[in-house]
């Protein structure tokens, strides 16, 4: 009859873990045993990378070096412009008495090449509570938002990616400030915008950035690019698909972000300023 006890224990644990999350401590302790395993499983990949790096030919290195140099030149010229803009922005904000600091603390974490549950989109990174990682912390890579931390262990943490079917992130369209929520679909290259009416002003190629509402993700990081809009007459909402900007399957290094807890502006202050469509939206929803 021990089996009955174990079944009951499993059921109770699953319920508690799903509903309350009191078990994070247990999970965190068990991670200590699991991390060495994941570390070892990751080793072959590390070794292969190392070997392929040390076997690169001189010509290849020179080529890469040239490319990087050019890239750096372009980037630094962009940064010059950006610095001027930042200064100007700061000055204007001070004039508005709402100074908002954009510089956030970041830390580079490396991804462990281990496979987790199939059909979920999670990754393991090699930074944990020791480095100050916390639950719900946003993760970005060079191109955009990747996801958020869901489980923290002492040396490692688990990250839920944007494309996981239970993930959602508040976003806005960069072009016109239209707000929405991007939810994961479980497919590795598709996010979907929820609850946008059929006649909404959105075009293929629109950049979607995090809106910072919900105060979990910092505002202004790119989330993805709209690549398909299907408006079916008769359906209440348009089906808008986004291609994530972040290299969700290719990144080896990710950035952990500690957003500055800046004094929050009233949530739609900013968007109502630069959002001519807000009124249209309200009209639309009133009509429906």
């Amino acid at each position, binding site marked *: 009859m021990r089996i009955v006890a174990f079944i009951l224990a499993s059921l109770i644990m*699953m319920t508690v873990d799903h509903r309350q999350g009191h078990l994070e401590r247990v999970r965190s302790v068990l991670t200590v*045993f*699991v991390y060495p395993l994941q570390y070892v*499983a990751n080793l072959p990949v590390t070794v292969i990378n190392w070997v392929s790096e040390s076997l690169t030919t001189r010509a290849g290195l020179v080529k890469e070096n040239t490319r990087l140099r050019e890239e750096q030149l372009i980037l630094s010229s962009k940064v010059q412009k950006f610095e001027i803009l930042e200064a100007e922005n700061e000055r204007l904000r001070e004039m508005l008495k709402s100074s908002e600091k954009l510089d956030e603390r970041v830390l580079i974490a490396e991804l462990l090449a281990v496979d987790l549950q*199939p059909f979920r989109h999670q990754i393991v990174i090699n930074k944990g509570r020791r480095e100050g990682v916390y639950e719900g912390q946003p993760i970005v890579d060079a191109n955009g938002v990747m996801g958020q931390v869901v489980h923290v262990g002492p040396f490692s943490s688990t990250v839920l990616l944007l494309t996981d079917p239970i993930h959602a992130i508040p976003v806005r369209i960069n072009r016109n400030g239209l707000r929405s929520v991007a939810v994961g679909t479980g497919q590795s290259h598709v996010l979907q915008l929820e609850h946008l009416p059929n006649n909404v002003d959105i075009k293929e190629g629109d950049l979607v950035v995090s809106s910072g509402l919900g105060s979990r993700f910092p505002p202004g990081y790119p989330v993805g690019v709209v690549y398909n809009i299907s408006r079916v007459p008769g359906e209440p909402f348009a089906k808008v698909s986004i291609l994530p900007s972040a290299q969700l399957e290719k990144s080896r290094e990710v950035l952990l972000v500690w957003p500055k807890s800046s004094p929050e502006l009233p949530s739609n202050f900013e968007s109502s300023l630069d959002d001519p469509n807000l009124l249209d939206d309200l009209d639309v929803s009133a009509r429906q």
Partner: protein
Amino acid sequence: MLNKNTGGWILFISLLIAFLLTALPLPHWADDWRPAWVAMVLIYWCMALPERIGIGIAWCMGLLLDVQQGALLGQNALGLALIAYFVIQIHKRFRLFPLVQQSCLVGFIIIFYLLISSWVTGIMGIPPKTWTYWMPAISSMVLWPWLFVILRDIRRQYNVT
């Protein structure tokens, strides 16, 4: 002889390797075919040494697997405990089956294990969407004879009792 348990480290290492194989990164196309290594190794030891490897150990392994895979705590624990229970119930018959029949049975056990996991994720609201979810059952079935022979030889060689 009853109290003298030898070769505990063999049990430990075999389970360790099963965990490693579960975490090992595979190319995308092979990912769906990854056999349920931990479940298979547990099935073997539950059949060969039911007095040593029982429901308790299976449950703990499941819990570790949950942590490793980022699943709900208890999801794999439930599945593995039930597998251990079932295999221990029939271990005497299981030992006498020819390899092909054993493989088929292992396939069914893994389907049952996947079914439990899919119920749990289904209740969470993220049921498996494609039929590829069930392919580990087939790959486990195909690999069982090799696993069985390897583990049996190791068990005899190191006299694990």
